[in-house]
């Protein structure tokens, strides 16, 4: 008769080994659903994220209302049309259009009435002022590039390219300040259009031609006014877009 010696069961892994294999299935599941539901960032957002070193600012930038494709295409179309008319009539249409277009675009870059998520965004640790300045800078540069390209293709008016940038800066920042103060992109954009309209109409009365508003002599003569508008608008925007503490301190001093 053969006797069997019981062989102790060897599970091969210890209890400690088992604990080390514990996997939080809930966490894994969230990772899986997150990967399934998310949409990869587009190339522009990825580049912006690398440059800004902030995925939050990159996402805030690509959601700028006045940087969506349809807005940019519309602006480009107006500039191209202006360039064609300018070529046909020898009138500097593009320098006349550029401040107005940029002013409206900048007013609609950020704030109540322009950004649908404005109310919630104001409770975020990512600085609202940083988002505003970032968006405004990119909107302005985009419009400046479009305007420069349109000006460059019109013979005879390319020499005023640099000069119309100054009214464009002033009118854009005026629109921005108006939007920030009134919490309305429409009012800000209208303010920039109105002021630029007054300047152009004044040129019409003075020199009997709209284009006098962007003549070299007029731009040089009005440079101090544009600089003053720029400085005041920038100051008001920075003051009003802060988190409040410095604003109250300044108000106390005043």
């Amino acid at each position, binding site marked *: 008769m053969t006797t069997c010696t019981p062989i102790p069961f060897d599970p091969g892994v210890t209890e400690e080994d088992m604990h080390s294999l514990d996997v939080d299935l809930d966490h894994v599941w969230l990772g899986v659903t997150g990967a399934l539901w998310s949409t990869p960032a587009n190339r522009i957002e990825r580049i912006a994220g690398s440059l800004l070193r902030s995925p939050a600012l990159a996402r*805030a930038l690509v959601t700028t209302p006045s940087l969506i494709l349809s807005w940019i295409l519309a602006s480009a179309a107006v500039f191209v049309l202006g360039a064609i008319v300018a070529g046909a009539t020898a009138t500097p249409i593009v320098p006349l259009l550029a401040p107005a277009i940029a002013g409206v675009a900048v007013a609609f870059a950020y704030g109540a009435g322009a950004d649908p*998520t404005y109310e*919630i965004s104001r409770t975020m640790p990512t600085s609202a002022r940083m988002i505003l300045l970032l968006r405004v800078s990119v909107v302005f540069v985009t419009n400046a590039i479009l305007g420069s390209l349109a000006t460059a293709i019109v013979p005879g008016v390319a020499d005023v390219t640099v000069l119309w940038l100054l009214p464009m800066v002033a009118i854009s920042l005026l629109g921005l300040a108006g939007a920030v103060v009134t919490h309305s992109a429409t009012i800000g954009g209208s303010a920039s259009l109105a002021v630029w309209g007054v300047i152009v109409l004044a040129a019409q009365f003075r020199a009997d031609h709209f284009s006098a508003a962007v003549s070299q002599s007029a731009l040089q003569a009005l440079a101090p006014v544009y600089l003053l508008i720029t400085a005041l608008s920038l100051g008001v925007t920075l003051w009003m877009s802060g988190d409040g503490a410095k604003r109250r301190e300044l108000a106390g001093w005043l």
Partner: protein
Amino acid sequence: MVVTTASRPGTIAAPRERTGAPGVLLRDVRHAFGRHQALDGIDLSAGTGVLGLLGPNGAGKTTLLRALATVLKPSQGSIRLLGRDPRNNDEMRQIRRRLGYLPQQFGYYPNFTVFEFIEYFALLKEMPPGQVKAAVSLAIQRVGLEDRAKTRMKSLSGGMLRRAGIAQAIVNEPELLLLDEPTVGLDPEQRVLFRGLLREMGERATVFVSTHLVEDVAIACNEVAIMEAGAIVFRGNPVDLTDLGAVPGDGGGDSAIERGYGLVLASARKR
């Protein structure tokens, strides 16, 4: 300001004990819009738990929540949130990282999917990028929008939009959660689920819920505050309010807590 803490001696069940430093500490907070005094000397301290804010339209509930959300700077008084001073920029940023806020009316980018909408705010709340996707997934599941995660916001119904709004508010596991009329547009089943979520959040966060639905307060809140004309005229737990309206006919409501609410308002208006 009048604050009624105990209404009928012997009938008050103690509110659930709060722990740690108050999540919210207000001292004589006042704010006016022109001649309208929206906040009129609010003194308030609240810790972990769910506090329901009741009151008629224009009583100051939304203004109070906007002040707590650091959107509105009161013209007078002091506010400390999560033990920090929002007047200090660094502390304000720390508060905002720990804050969840659902405004009464919130906007959205119509072409964003539900996931992208919530992810956007998770990023703005400066959550570690590696945790964002899992946190967004969890928030979506908690509000029951799994089957709509990839749906564009413009295609959602009103109730679903509200749930997406709640999800963005809780995505960062906030220590201070402020919800302004969160149950508007939710169907009865979703309201029940939402109350469960509210109680769960109240286990570890200071939660303020502004609502017109008294039954939500009765079921989901540990405490209730009633506002009238910019002031808090009642503070207690839902049982206090129910006891006030125990006698049918008083206050004019269908349920005891509604009658209690009506009586408190009538009493405050007489004063």
